[in-house]
């Protein structure tokens, strides 16, 4: 097998060969995650981003290309796909699946967005902008090939069963989730990881929604509940991403989508999201414990599972006492 272009020069040449994009400059690697690497480059004055799948990743990036195109067409603020390996005929000089998108200036670090003065105006309107963007996303009718519809409860119960640990708090949470599950609603394209950290924010508000790797078919309330999980409040006092009230999100969502989700339904999904993040913390620590990545940061995440147990149990107690629906 031929080696994959790995230096900036090799990658630039490979992109030109694959897409015809000429005059590539300033090629530099931004991040290297577990499943993909991200590079930045310029064509003239324009900054571009290329994401390239790792050879070992089981994910199909072409599904994400389809999702991004559908979201862009629906008016959701997202990067525009300018080229991708999906549209290649014949061999792929870049070596693995890739997509090239336009770059956005802005901030993704939640703590800055929550606290810095320059985002004061943005903070006032972001919760409604989140609702509006999700409303547009969930109205997409076109079919995106390759998306899976996975029952979230069944999937994460199995996750708990297979994680090799016991968590009585999550058993209590699943029992409550089963007993209080809202009627299964409409199925639509959901982002799957819509939260601070995956959103580019400017001082005027939301600029772009990133990280569509986890997009799938699901219940529209899933994205709203996930955004309200306490971990994604980053210490902020308010439920929606730490900066907004439930009603701001729900009202803007209703206006944008024509579908009004109740606070009870939203909070049910928030509890599920809390359990889900707790289980994901177990997985993160497992990357370290099984030796696939050695990292004290990942190891420490194992001790954050109990934060989610705590949040889930308190939310359930609040909802059982009938207080959860009034705390807007």
């Amino acid at each position, binding site marked *: 097998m031929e080696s994959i272009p790995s230096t900036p020069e090799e990658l630039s040449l490979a992109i030109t060969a694959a897409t015809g994009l000429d005059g590539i400059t300033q090629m530099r690697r931004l991040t290297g995650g577990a499943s993909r690497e991200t590079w930045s480059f310029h064509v003239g004055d324009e900054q571009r981003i290329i994401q390239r799948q790792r050879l070992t990743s089981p994910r199909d990036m072409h599904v994400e290309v389809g999702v991004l195109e559908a979201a862009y067409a629906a008016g959701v603020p997202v990067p525009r796909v300018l080229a991708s390996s999906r549209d290649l005929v014949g061999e792929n000089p870049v070596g693995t699946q890739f997509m090239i998108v336009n770059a956005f200036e802005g901030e993704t670090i939640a703590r800055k967005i929550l606290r810095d003065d320059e985002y004061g105006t943005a903070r006032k309107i972001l919760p409604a902008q989140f609702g509006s963007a999700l409303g547009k996303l969930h109205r997409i009718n076109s079919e995106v090939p390759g998306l899976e519809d996975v029952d979230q409860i069944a999937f994460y119960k199995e996750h708990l069963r297979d994680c090799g640990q*016991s968590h*009585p708090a999550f058993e209590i949470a699943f029992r409550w989730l089963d007993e209080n599950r809202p009627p299964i609603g409409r199925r639509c394209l959901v982002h799957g990881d819509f939260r601070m950290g995956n959103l580019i924010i400017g001082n005027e508000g939301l600029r772009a929604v990133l990280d569509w790797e986890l997009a799938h078919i699901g219940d529209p309330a899933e994205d709203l509940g996930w955004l309200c999980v306490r971990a994604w409040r980053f210490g902020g006092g308010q439920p929606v991403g730490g900066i907004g009230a439930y009603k701001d999100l729900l009202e803007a969502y209703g206006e944008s989508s024509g579908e009004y989700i109740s606070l009870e339904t939203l909070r049910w999904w928030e509890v599920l999201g809390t359990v889900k993040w707790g289980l994901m913390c177990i997985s993160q620590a497992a990357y370290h414990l099984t030796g696939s990545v050695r990292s004290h940061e990942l190891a420490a995440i194992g001790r*954050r599972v109990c*934060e989610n147990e*705590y949040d889930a149990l308190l939310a359930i107690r609040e909802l059982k006492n009938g207080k959860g629906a009034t705390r807007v």
Partner: protein
Amino acid sequence: MGKVPHVSELHDPPTAQQLIESVREWLETDVFPQVEGRLQFHTRVAMNVLAMVERELEIGGEQNEHYAAGLAAFQCNNEAELAEKIRTGALLSKEAEVEEFVLNSVKEKLRVANPKYLRDE
């Protein structure tokens, strides 16, 4: 600090807790102010991890005994049995007591992992 709960008959001072404390203090005073960006973030994580281990060395033994006694009160030999009984509904007649016990045990975990996370209920 002055606490020496894990005095060993065999090992000489400092105690494990005091050794970890000394490393954490060095990270705080000498390393953290000198680094920035990702390295500073990872230094902060390291300080937090060491502080967590100090807390576990201080109160973990007592917590474990207490937890085992609580599990036994529900006829469970270990946590996995409690989880199984909750899942199968075998403890439904004691639902309120079980939930209280589990919430309290979660709070005990937070007293070690991240005491600041606990809030007024």
